[in-house]
C-alpha cells in the first residue's frame, strides 16, 4: 500500500530532506479528497442545518445527517441516532464525565487503567471530586500489558463506570476491551472506550467491543480538526442527560422549562461542525475504500519492522509489548526525548517527544519523557532507515 500521492502535504521537503511524517498518533495528514469535499461544501452547499426551509439549508442538513450515517456504518453502530458529533475525543469524554455524574455518589468507584491519556483521566478525577466517588486503576504487567487477572478484584459491586483506552498512545498496548466490558456489564457498570488510537487503524465494531460509549477524533483519522465522535447505545444515550444546552438540542421551550430533541440532536447544542462533518465522512469513505483490514495489515508490517529494528539497536529501549497498535515509543540512553526528536527533524523525520499527554504513565514507568514514531496509511517501510540513521546519530552524540 502506498498512498503518499493522495496527500498533498507530504510532497514537500523539510530542512532540505523529503518529509517523513511519523507523528500520526498526534494527528494525521488529510487526503486531497477530504480537502475537496470541504471546499465543495463551502462553495456550493453551506447553510445552517435543521432550521431553514430553503434549498441550501436542506442540502446542508442532508449532508450533515448523512455524515452521521457514514460514521455509524463505519463502526457498525445501529444508525444516525447513536452518533453524536463533538469537538473531539476530549470533548466526548468530558461530556460523559459531566452527564454521568448524577449516577455517582460517595463510595462509588470509577475504574480506569494506568494507560489513560490525560483526556480520559482528568475528567474522571473531576467527576470523582464533585461526587465523592473514587478512582481505581487496572495495573500493568512488566511488559506493558494490562493485568487482566485482577479484573474481578478491581471491578466490584461499587463500580459504576469503567473506562479504558483501546490502544495506548504511548505503549501501543491493545487493551482487551471486550473482556473488560463483559465484567463491567456483569455488575451493571457503564463501559466507556477511548478509541482515538484504534478507530483510525483497526476495523472497529462497537457491538463486538461491548462499548456503551465510544469516543474518537476526526483529525487522527485523516479528517479535519474540530470534530470528534461520541457513540452511545440507544439505551445509554436515552438515559443520559444533555451536556450542552441551547439551540438545536431542544424540542419545546418555554420561559420556564424545555424538553429535549430526539437523538442524536439532544447532545448537539448550537451550530454544529457541519463542514467538518462532511470532511470526516469523506475521510471515512476513503478509509472504507482502502479497507480497514488492509490498512491494519499495512501498518502492522511497518510497526513490526520498526519495533524489531529498534529492539536490536544498542542504547535504545523500546517501551511496551511486542503485540501493539501502529506506534513505537522508545528512549535513547543519555539523550532527552526532545533532543532525539530535534535530530530526527534535522533529517526531515517528524516524531513526537515528551510525555504524550500521559504524564502519570511516564512517572509510573520512571522515565521523564519518550520519543514516539507512529504510522499511518501513507507510511512506508523504506522511510524507516532515515529514522534509524537519526537515532544512531543521537546515540553517537549523547550516549
Amino acid at each position, binding site marked *: 500500500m502506498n498512498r503518499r500521492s493522495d496527500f498533498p502535504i507530504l510532497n514537500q521537503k523539510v530542512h532540505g530532506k523529503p518529509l517523513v511524517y511519523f507523528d500520526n498518533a498526534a494527528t494525521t495528514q488529510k487526503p486531497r479528497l477530504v480537502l475537496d469535499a470541504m471546499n465543495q461544501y463551502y462553495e456550493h452547499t453551506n447553510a445552517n442545518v435543521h432550521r431553514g426551509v430553503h434549498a441550501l439549508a436542506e442540502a446542508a442538513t442532508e449532508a450533515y445527517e448523512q455524515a452521521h450515517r457514514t460514521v455509524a456504518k463505519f463502526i457498525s453502530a445501529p444508525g444516525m441516532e447513536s452518533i453524536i458529533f463533538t469537538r473531539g475525543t476530549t470533548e466526548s469524554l468530558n461530556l460523559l464525565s459531566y452527564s454521568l455524574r448524577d449516577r455517582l455518589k460517595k463510595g462509588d468507584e470509577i475504574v480506569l487503567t494506568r494507560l489513560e491519556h490525560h483526556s480520559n483521566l482528568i475528567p474522571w478525577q473531576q467527576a470523582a471530586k464533585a461526587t465523592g466517588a473514587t478512582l481505581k486503576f487496572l495495573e500493568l504487567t512488566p511488559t506493558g500489558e494490562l493485568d487482566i487477572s485482577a479484573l474481578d478484584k478491581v471491578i466490584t459491586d461499587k463500580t459504576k463506570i469503567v473506562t479504558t483506552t483501546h490502544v495506548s498512545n504511548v505503549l501501543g498496548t491493545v487493551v482487551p476491551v471486550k473482556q473488560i466490558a463483559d465484567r463491567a456489564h456483569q455488575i451493571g457498570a457503564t463501559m466507556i472506550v477511548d478509541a482515538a488510537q484504534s478507530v483510525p487503524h483497526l476495523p472497529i465494531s462497537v457491538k463486538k467491543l461491548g462499548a456503551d460509549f465510544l469516543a474518537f477524533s476526526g483529525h487522527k483519522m485523516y479528517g479535519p480538526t474540530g470534530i470528534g465522535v461520541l457513540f452511545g447505545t440507544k439505551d445509554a444515550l436515552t438515559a443520559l442527560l444533555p451536556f450542552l444546552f441551547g439551540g438545536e438540542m431542544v424540542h419545546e421551550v418555554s420561559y420556564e422549562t424545555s424538553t429535549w430533541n430526539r437523538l442524536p440532536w439532544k447532545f448537539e447544542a448550537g451550530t454544529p461542525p457541519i463542514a467538518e462533518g462532511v470532511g470526516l465522512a469523506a475521510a471515512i469513505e476513503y478509509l472504507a475504500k482502502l479497507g480497514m483490514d488492509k490498512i491494519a495489515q499495512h501498518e502492522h508490517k511497518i510497526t513490526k519492522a520498526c519495533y524489531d529494528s529498534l529492539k536490536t539497536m544498542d542504547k535504545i529501549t523500546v517501551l511496551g509489548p511486542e503485540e501493539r497498535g501502529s506506534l513505537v515509543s522508545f528512549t535513547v540512553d*543519555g*539523550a*532527552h*526525548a*526532545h*533532543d532525539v526528536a*530535534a*535530530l530526527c527533524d*534535522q533529517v526531515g523525520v517528524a516524531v513526537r*517527544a*515528551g*510525555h504524550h499527554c500521559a*504524564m502519570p504513565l*511516564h512517572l509510573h514507568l520512571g522515565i*521523564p*519523557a519518550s520519543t514516539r514514531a507512529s504510522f499511518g496509511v501513507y507510511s512506508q517501510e523504506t522511510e524507516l532507515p532515515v529514522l534509524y540513521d537519526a537515532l544512531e546519530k543521537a546515540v553517537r*552524540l*549523547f550516549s
Partner: protein
Amino acid sequence: MTDELYKEVILDHYKHPHNKGKLENATVKQTEQNPICGDVVTIYLNIADNVITDISFNGCGCAISTAAASLLTDHLKGKTIEEAQNLSRDDMVSLLTVSISPARTKCAMLALVAVKNGTAGLR
C-alpha cells in the same frame, strides 16, 4: 551563530555540566518546570550584598536546557542581582552560541526563568 544545534560546546556542557549539584544552605532555591517535555531545573543561589557569590543547579532536562543552566551559572558567578534580572533571551542565546528556534526557547530559558523568579523579591 550556527545552524548546527548540537555543537561541541552544547554537548560538552550537557555531558559535563558545570555547577551541577545542590548548594547546601543556599539563600535562594527556585524550581521551574517545562511540563510539555518534562524538563525540571532547580537553581541554588548564595547572595551577599546583592552579589551572587555562588550558584548551582540540579534537575533533568534536554541538552539545550542543561547546557543553558551550565553556561548561565558560570556566567552569573560574581554578578549582581540586577545584572541577572536584566538578562534577556538574546543574552541567553549568545551564551549558548547556537540559534534557538521558537520550539526550543522554553528549554533555553528555563534556568534563567528560575534565576529571575528566585531573585525577583530580592531587588
